[in-house]
């Protein structure tokens, strides 16, 4: 049976992991490669590296980092942040990333999804959507949630799929950072609407939230950052718990 995936997300700035980490006996907390290996050893199914650097110099550093991750980590990983055109995609895939995640660029230029799918295959193209629940609608936002758009979650996700997206990474801005669970109702609708995998993001605070994202939200994968980085939830413990709850996970 296809396992539900657990995906830690690492924010990287100038080659260093941004959010703090709290692992016992873990010395290189800031090193994204070491941290990725550590998550992989604990049983993470995939990794996401998000480049939050704004500068050109930082982009180069990130590409070098992607090469190191590809050399040392033996599970799939996705990279995102600052991908605006095909040459960014080409650079990151050539460096060894398995998938790229595009967000604002996909909304500004939806043809980018088609270009990626045509040149590298659908499986490479993750379309990330940041949406906020307002006036009974899930409105999509640009630039890390700062700029509202006239696109809405369900129709935009469907369009992205039709254009060739291989996966949808849906972050609920309404739930993100609140630690009270994922947006399960919206996830469930999204998962039923689409025939590509849906990754849940935003809202994880405890183990039960992951279970609910899979069982109530019908998500194919769940992404989280701080609960893993701060050691609040261990990936191995989480997977043991999920297995007991009847969720198929890779042990």
């Amino acid at each position: 049976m296809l396992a539900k995936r657990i995906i830690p997300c690492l924010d990287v700035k100038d080659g260093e992991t941004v959010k703090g980490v709290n692992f016992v006996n873990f010395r290189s907390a800031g090193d994204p490669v070491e941290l990725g290996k550590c998550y992989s050893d604990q049983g993470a199914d995939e990794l996401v590296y998000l480049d939050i650097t704004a500068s050109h110099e930082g982009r180069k550093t990130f590409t070098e980092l992607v090469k190191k991750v590809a050399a040392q980590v033996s599970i799939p990983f996705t990279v995102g942040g600052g991908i605006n055109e095909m040459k960014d995609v080409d650079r990151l895939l050539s460096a060894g990333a398995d998938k790229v995640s595009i967000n604002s660029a996909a909304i500004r230029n939806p043809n980018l999804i088609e270009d990626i799918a045509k040149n590298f295959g659908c499986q490479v193209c993750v379309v990330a959507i940041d949406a906020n629940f307002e006036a009974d609608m899930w409105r999509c936002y640009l630039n890390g949630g700062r700029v509202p758009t006239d696109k809405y979650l369900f129709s935009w996700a469907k369009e992205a799929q039709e254009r060739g997206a291989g996966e949808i990474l849906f972050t609920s801005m309404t739930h993100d950072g609140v630690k009270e669970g994922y947006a399960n109702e919206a996830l469930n609708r999204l998962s039923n609407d689409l025939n590509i995998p849906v990754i849940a993001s935003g809202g994880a605070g405890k183990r039960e939230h992951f279970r609910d994202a899979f069982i109530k939200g019908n998500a194919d994968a769940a992404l989280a950052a701080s609960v893993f980085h701060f050691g609040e939830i261990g990936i191995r413990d989480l997977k043991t718990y999920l297995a007991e709850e009847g969720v198929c996970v890779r042990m």
Partner: protein
Amino acid sequence: MQVAIIKYNAGNICSVENALKRVGVTPVITDDKETLQKADKVIFPGVGEAASTMQYLKAHRLDELIKGLRQPVLGICIGMQLMCRHSEEGDVDCLNIFDAEVKRFVPTPQERKVPHMGWNTIEQLKSDMFPIELEKSFVYFVHSYYVPVNKNTTAVTDYITPFSAALHKDNFYATQFHIEKSGKVGEHILNHFLSL
């Protein structure tokens, strides 16, 4: 030991190179006939589309070369599919090492999502390509086409339908899953292949 990776117009070749380096082997990536024939092991990896990659192989005379190899050869993902008789992807005749047809997944109401992407188990392990303790281990898949279970099947995975997760015939070995992205299990299988 000399391990050669076949160089052709498919993606993902550097992932296999990285995986080999992690287990202590530095491969050569080449389309040179003599180098490939002389290598102790040959790996035929890739992510891509069947018809266009097959066309490339033919244009570069790699098709006959691959079929004629005598050392252990390992096909991965599209590499495995190209080693079959025919693929529905682009309706193309392939290398015909394995007498099997490559078909597209037809989604069911229970398992609707194509590609089959993520970690799934390999079962009913046969042949010397797998250490027996790997029965029911999770490995990483990304594919929209599959090879039905046939007489060369050496591992079965169930998604939409039971399909061939691996094939073996004579000196030809192949896996539908990405050995190079399958964590410790993948490294185990890779090491085992290198020891054949």
